[in-house]
């Protein structure tokens, strides 16, 4: 699923996001040019996904509105950093997570298999964005989570490995 990059940018701007802290995959990576364009959004590139949660924590504590953008494999990798900022520090951070292989019928990709069980285990509130027309659903979910003072995750369905 290719969501138009400008549509993503506009959605994030409307959500008041100030920084996208990211380590993209092949699907999210298509948004790089739009997210990196000078303007109201800042793109922060990390080397490993755990950093993204900690940087977002610092930005949030400083009064800004970050969003973590990573693949589901990065979600797994960054578990301890996520645990710390969402549960020890209790910061209501938002994340967009690429849901690798979700659109591949009968995929045996273990990254697909474990994504939702892992989010359920963490008790994280998530929605799945299955098509570009569902971006408003994502925005509404992230906004509702923020207003409720809890973390919010949007899984963006992907077909690529």
């Amino acid at each position, binding site marked *: 699923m290719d969501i138009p990059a400008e549509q993503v940018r506009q959605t994030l701007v409307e959500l008041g996001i100030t920084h996208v802290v990211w380590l993209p995959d092949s699907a999210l990576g298509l948004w790089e040019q739009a997210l990196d364009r000078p303007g109201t959004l800042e793109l922060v590139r*990390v080397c*490993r996904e755990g950093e993204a949660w*900690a*940087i977002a*924590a*610092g930005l949030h*504590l*400083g009064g800004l509105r970050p969003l973590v953008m990573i693949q589901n494999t990065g979600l797994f990798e960054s578990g301890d950093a996520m645990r710390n900022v969402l549960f020890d520090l209790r910061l209501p951070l938002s994340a967009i997570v690429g849901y690798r292989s979700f659109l591949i019928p009968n995929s045996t990709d273990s990254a697909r298999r474990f994504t939702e069980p892992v989010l359920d285990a963490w008790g994280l509130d998530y929605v799945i964005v299955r098509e570009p027309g569902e971006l408003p659903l994502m925005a509404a979910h992230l906004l509702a989570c923020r207003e409720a003072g809890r973390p919010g995750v949007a899984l963006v369905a992907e077909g690529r490995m």
Partner: protein
Amino acid sequence: MTDSTGSRMPLVAALEILIRLRTDQIVVTTMGSAREWPKLSQNPLDFHYVPSSMGQAPPLGLGLALTKPEREVLVLNGDGGMLMNLGCLVTIVASGARNITVIVLENGIYEVTGGQQTAALAARRHAEVDFSGFARAAGFAVAERFDRLQDWQAQAAEILRRPGPRFVALSVEPVGAEYHLEAPGPMAERLPKFAQALAQIE
């Protein structure tokens, strides 16, 4: 880790030099520094990152530095934590933040778990692991290492005045039996106070 005479600086003395030089910086401590710093100094702009995610103090400090570009951020990290997240040195440089100083307190052990060797210490059988060399290679504007307290004392102020990002590795003595680390109060109480202090920065 040691100089030619085998000396390392006491952790508390190394921190006291920073405390004397500290003006209005935001300070993030973790691990051994989070145990010792609150005994020496208390400031609303101190964030003792305990409980932490090991290795994430520099990225957290980077997030703070990006929110307050006119204010300096000091991150006191352990060498074990630094080894867990060397990539963050590149992240810091890539971010363009110049108002951050990462100080690694290098004792070669995982102190808070009882003193087991880090891989860097074990690697010394084969080669010297140079933390400041990592930072220099990542593009830090300042990357220094001190083994002797008097050298750190003599140069600390000038280093903190230089344009960042800055990295300093300090070779420090382990604290021995006093390794146990407890949070200096509940996070649910400390964090809002810290955020409030940040909000008051113009």
